[in-house]
Each structure stands twice: as C-alpha cells, then as structure tokens.
C-alpha cells in the first residue's frame, strides 16, 4: 500500500509457521513504528513497520500471516502466498523473505524453507529463540544448516535487547548478494508427494545439522499435566474466564463511569457556554456525546486485549481451545470462540474485536454473527426498568425471587438463541457445509514479554479509535440529526422530539409494530435508542415528557406501568433480547468483516428474530389475559 511505501526503500516480508515468534521479532525490529490496516477487499490484517539497516537502508517490513505452506488454505494464507510470489497488486514484491523459525522446533519450519526456495526470491532464515535452544543443550551447526539448505542462516533472540543485531547486519549483505542473480519462480502448489519429499529432506538436514536437546523441555509437560487435566484443567479454565469476565464487566466500570460523566460534564459546559439553539444541541448531543460513546468502550477493550495477549503469549490460548473444542463444537463454534462470546456479556464491541483470535474465516464470521445475542451490560438498564415496573417482587417456590428469575430467563434466552443461530448457520448457511478441522500446535509455554504485550494492546486501542470510532461517531451524529430535525415550532408545548424525523419515522413504523403491542411512544423511542440500548430508557422518558432524563428512572417506571399492558412490557423485554438496537455494534461488525453485507445480515436476522419472538410473546400474553 502506498501509505507505508517510500521511494528507494527495500521491502522485506516476514514469513513463518504459527508460533515461530514472528510477531515478537516484528515488534523487536520495528518497535512502535507499525501500521495496522486491512488488505484491500479482504478482512485480513496487514501489519507493516519501518526499520533501518546498519548500512543506512530504510526497510518496509511486512508481517505476513503465519502459515505451514504457501498453498493458501485460508484467506490469510492466500495473502501470504500472493505477497511472497509478488502477485498482489497493492504490495511491491519483497526484496527479501525473512523466514522465521523457532530454533527449538525446526523440523516443520525447515520444510517451509525448502518450499520457499522454489519462489526464487532471496531468503534469510532467522533461527529465533536461539537462547532457549542453547539452554536446552541443542547443538545447532548454523554453517552446516546454511550449506545443506542453500540459504543464509542467522540466529536471533527477539525478546532481548540487542538480540537482533546480527540479523540487521546480515540484511544488507544478503540483499546486495542476491540483487545480481535474479531467479525465476518454480513454485507450484505442493502435492502430498512433494510435501513428503520435502519433509524427508528437512528431516535429513535435521540429522546432519541439529543435535537432540540434552536437557529437553520438561516444564511444558509438567504444566500441561495440570492445565490439560480433564477436571483440574477445566476448573482452572473456568476460574480464568471468571476473572476475565469480572475484569471486563466490573473493573472497567469505574473507568467507564468516569469517562461518561466526564463527557457529560463537558457537554453541560458546552451547553452553558453556547447560545440556546441548534449549534448548542449539535455540540452537546451530537459531537461531545458522539465522541464520548466511542471513548467509553476503551477501558473494556484495553482490559480484554491485555488478557488475550497475555494468554496468547504464554501459550495458553491453544490449550483453552483444546479444552473447549468439544463443548463449543456441539453448537458448531470454534474452541477459540469462547473468549469473544464471554466478553460479549460485557459488551459485544470488544467481543467482536476479540474474534481475531479465530484464524478460520468461517468460524470467525459465525462467532461475529452470534456475539450480539449475548446479554450485554447495556441491556441491563432496560431490563431492570421494565422488570421493576411490571414484574411483582415476590418469591416463587418459596425462595426464588420472581424478578431475578425473569432476569435469568433473559440471559438464558440470549445464550440459547446464540447457540441455536450458530447451529443453523453451520448446517444451512455455509454452502460448502464443511466443518473446518481442528488441528493446531500446542506451543511450549513462555513467559510473556511486557514490551510486546504493551505494543499489542496499544495497536488494538488505536485501531479501535481510528477505524471503529469514526463509524460509531458518524452514526451518533446521524441519530442526533434524526432526533433533532425538524425543530419544533415556536411556543410548542410537546417535547421537541415529537416534531423530529425520528418521531415521523416512529409513527410511520408504528402500524408495523402494533401487532407486537408497541405504541407510538415506544416506536419513537426505539430510534434514538439505536445509539445504545440503555439510551432507550432516557428516550422513553423524553417521549413521555418526563423532566430530569436519566435520573428519573423510577418515575419513568411508574409512567410505563400506568401506560402499558403487561403484554406490551413482556414483548419489549423479548424484543431487547434479539433486536439489533445498537448502532455501535453494527459499525464494528462492518469494520471487522470489511463488508456492509455482513452488517446487513446481522441486522436482518436479529430484527426478524426480535419481531417474531415479540409477536409470539405479545399474543400469548394477551390470550392469557395480560393484554
């Protein structure tokens, strides 16, 4: 992409198998100077950064998705293949392939090097984590390895200061040497025979150049005896998930409250400073609350990604997927989907961003599709308002509170519908109908490096602010516009929103919503309620002309109790389980999938579910005499 390209700079590509320490090396080489975007037209993440060689050459380094071969089994791996072969129009052909291999786990990596040689581009094999290999007493004859492979080899320790010096020094040399003798690519997708032959050759080289470790890693085995234990392992996983959920749900709360009251104060200050009118409303309710509604998600996203990156670096993520595979697999979800789905109980936005831990595109899209069905914390104000206004506060079966039971039912309905939708999507929606195999390496445990984690968390946060933030902000301004235009005529006594486009639209859709028991007040409130689910509470207050906004929740409850039937209240509760009442979630889906199509599908299926479920609830309730 032209943004990161400089005239005369070299272009290097980092290639390697998963778990080769490629990302750590990328972070070590480029530091904070990285850019994350998507490749044009696909959802694959493009990570690029800048570095300088000792000879003063500037290098654009691009971190390609990890792969075992160039065959391109997934969109990510296809990108790796296209870039390596120099076939991607938006990417200059790499001047050098930096092939990263874990020095403690070379066997499969050497097969990849043998395949990469056929591409005909200069290769430098980087034996990363050489310190760990040496500690284990593995003799690696670098010179012999280089001679046998026919590729220059260099060692590195990505996570240590100065651990990449030799690598940087060799870069200049290798590129200059290779520039004189360009070679044509003879690569073609390897057959099973090619793969066998290449692996046999790699094994032969291993025998010649790499000794057996004198002190093999026993720590990983001992830790796994506990963490993968059928009982203890699951309990530890549940405990970890509980802590993570607590962190995203509860620890982020004070920060989020601080941010939202900060923006409220800022809004009031702007309100006081500006003359009454349109500009005042735009600044306070459009711009400031729009920016606020983006920034308020930051604490959750930071905390969640801190956990995810720590677990990933430690090597636990693959283990968790191993433990959860059968449990999640029953509903057609990937073992790795549990973290995004769990986070979605706090908020679907960090949850959907967390689906990046799932490599397979199809598994990832299914998870994105069902994540908004998890009962997020923004539904709680709506649920509590309606429950406390309509559900009697009494005990059933002697000890269970009825209100709590209804709340539990709403949560359970969310989970069950998510499992159901994922099941249906897997059996009817994906045309190829192929369940992707679960096969992955369980890497050796490693102590996470804080610097690498910090870079990762920072990159995620910036990506959220820049990419999702702009979409969320524009939707907030749009919703403000709908709720504010046209302005009420002078001297009108009704609330201003009654004259707005939102009200016109609300009255227009009211006949559609009448069968599910919604009056026009609800229909109108649903539109500003798209800003965030909890905004619906304040919006109901506005349309019922209750002064005091959010603080008047109790008063709103009383008003609703006297205006709505129980059937209407129940239908609205059920509506909120399913309805896509959150513009920010839709914006993030659009950003993460890179397509309006997936956003439309999510919106459509959730709306359909909401309507059907609310229709059934309303009519059954009316038939039972609650109308």
């Amino acid at each position, binding site marked *: 992409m032209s943004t990161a390209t400089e005239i005369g700079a070299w272009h290097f590509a980092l290639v390697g198998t998963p778990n080769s320490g490629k990302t750590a090396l990328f972070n070590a080489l480029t530091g904070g100077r990285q850019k994350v975007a998507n490749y044009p037209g696909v959802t694959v993440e493009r990570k690029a950064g800048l570095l300088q060689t000792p000879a003063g050459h500037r290098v654009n380094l691009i971190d390609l998705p990890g792969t075992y071969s160039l065959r391109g089994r997934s969109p990510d791996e296809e990108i790796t293949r296209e870039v390596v072969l120099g076939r991607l129009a938006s990417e200059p052909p790499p001047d050098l392939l930096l092939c990263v291999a874990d020095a403690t786990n070379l*066997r499969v990596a050497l097969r990849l090097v043998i395949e990469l040689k056929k591409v005909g581009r200069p290769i430098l094999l980087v034996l990363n984590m050489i310190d760990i290999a040496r500690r284990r007493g593995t003799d690696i004859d670098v010179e012999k390895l280089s001679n046998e492979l026919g590729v220059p080899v260099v060692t590195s320790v990505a996570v240590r200061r100065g651990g990449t010096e030799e690598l940087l020094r060799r870069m200049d040399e290798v590129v200059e040497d290779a520039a004189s003798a360009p070679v044509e690519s003879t690569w073609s997708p390897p057959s099973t025979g090619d793969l066998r032959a290449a692996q046999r050759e790699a094994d032969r080289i291993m025998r010649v150049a790499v000794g057996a470790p004198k002190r093999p890693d026993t720590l990983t085995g001992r830790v796994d005896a506990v963490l993968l234990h*059928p009982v203890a392992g699951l309990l530890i996983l549940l405990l970890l998930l509980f802590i993570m959920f607590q962190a995203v749900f509860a620890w982020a709360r004070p920060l989020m409250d601080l941010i939202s009251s900060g923006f409220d104060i800022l809004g009031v200050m702007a309100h006081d400073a500006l003359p009454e009118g349109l500009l005042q409303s735009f600044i306070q309710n459009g711009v400031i609350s729009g920016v606020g509604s983006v920034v308020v998600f930051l604490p959750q996203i930071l905390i969640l990604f801190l956990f995810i990156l720590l677990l990933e670096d430690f090597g636990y993520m693959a283990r968790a*997927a*191993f*433990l959860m595979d059968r449990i999640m697999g029953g509903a057609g979800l990937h073992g790795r989907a549990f973290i995004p789905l769990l986070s979605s109980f706090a908020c679907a936005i960090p949850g959907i961003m967390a689906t990046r831990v799932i490599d397979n595109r199809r598994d990832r899209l299914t998870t994105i599709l069902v994540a908004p069905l998890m009962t997020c914390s923004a539904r709680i104000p709506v649920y509590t308002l309606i429950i406390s206004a309509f559900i009697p506060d009494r005990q059933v079966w002697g000890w269970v509170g009825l209100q709590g039971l209804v709340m539990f039912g709403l949560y359970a309905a969310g989970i069950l519908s998510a499992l159901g939708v994922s099941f249906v999507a897997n059996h009817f929606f994906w045309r190829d109908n*192929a369940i992707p195999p679960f*096969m*992955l390496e369980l890497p050796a445990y490693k102590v996470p490096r804080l610097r690498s984690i910090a870079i990762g968390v920072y990159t995620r946060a910036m990506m959220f602010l820049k990419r999702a933030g702009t979409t969320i902000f524009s939707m907030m301004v749009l919703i403000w516009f709908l709720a504010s235009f046209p302005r009420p005529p002078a001297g009108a006594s009704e609330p201003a929103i009654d004259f707005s486009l939102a009200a016109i639209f609300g009255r227009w859709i009211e006949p559609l919503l009448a069968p599910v028991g919604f009056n026009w007040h609800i229909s109108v409130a649903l539109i500003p309620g798209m800003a965030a689910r909890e905004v619906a509470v304040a919006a109901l207050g506005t349309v019922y002309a209750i002064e005091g906004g959010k603080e008047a929740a109790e008063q709103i409850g009383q008003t609703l109790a006297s205006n709505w039937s129980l059937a209407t209240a129940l239908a609205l509760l059920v509506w909120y389980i399913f309805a896509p009442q959150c513009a920010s979630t839709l914006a993030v889906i659009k950003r993460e999938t890179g397509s309006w199509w997936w956003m439309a599908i999510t919106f459509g299926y959730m709306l359909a579910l909401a309507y059907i479920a609310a229709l059934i609830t309303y009519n059954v309730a009316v038939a039972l005499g609650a109308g």
Partner: protein
Amino acid sequence: MTQDCQPRNGRDGSPLGLARRGFSGCIKSIEVAATVHGITAVELERRLLELGFLEGAAIEVVHEGPVGRDPIAVRLNGTIIALRRREAMAVFVT
C-alpha cells in the same frame, strides 16, 4: 533431533484416532478415507503432512480432551499437536 522409528514388522497399523493416552508408537501410514471429513481427503492428508505427520515418525498420545476423550494431543518429534479423533483416524500407527 528427529526421532525415527521402525514400524514393527508383520503388524498392520491401527488408527491413531482409537489410541488412548499413554500410547507410544510409530506412524505406519497416512490414509484418508474420502467420505468422513468436511474437507477433501487429499486436503486432509496435506494438512497432516504440513504439521509434520510422516511415515516413520515416532508418535505418542500425551493428552485427551475432557469431553469424550476428544480431541487428543500427540507428541511428534518434540512438538505437541492437538487434533480431533475424527481426523486422527487417518493416521495409522503401530
């Protein structure tokens, strides 16, 4: 560093998918039955090869999943690989 093994003579391989934790042996062959998988037989064979499964490699079942003893984790030349029993049925071991 690679550990090779000689398949014991005169014995047919049995599928890795049926092996229990503690099994230790040798890969005799990789043969994918065409019908049982979501992906084509050739594709599954390639994926197994890419992860390092190869005739003559030493293999050991080191972990079993908590539900239905599935998936399993095997040690293959010092690397731990997790896979479902369904896919492991294609790997014959002795």
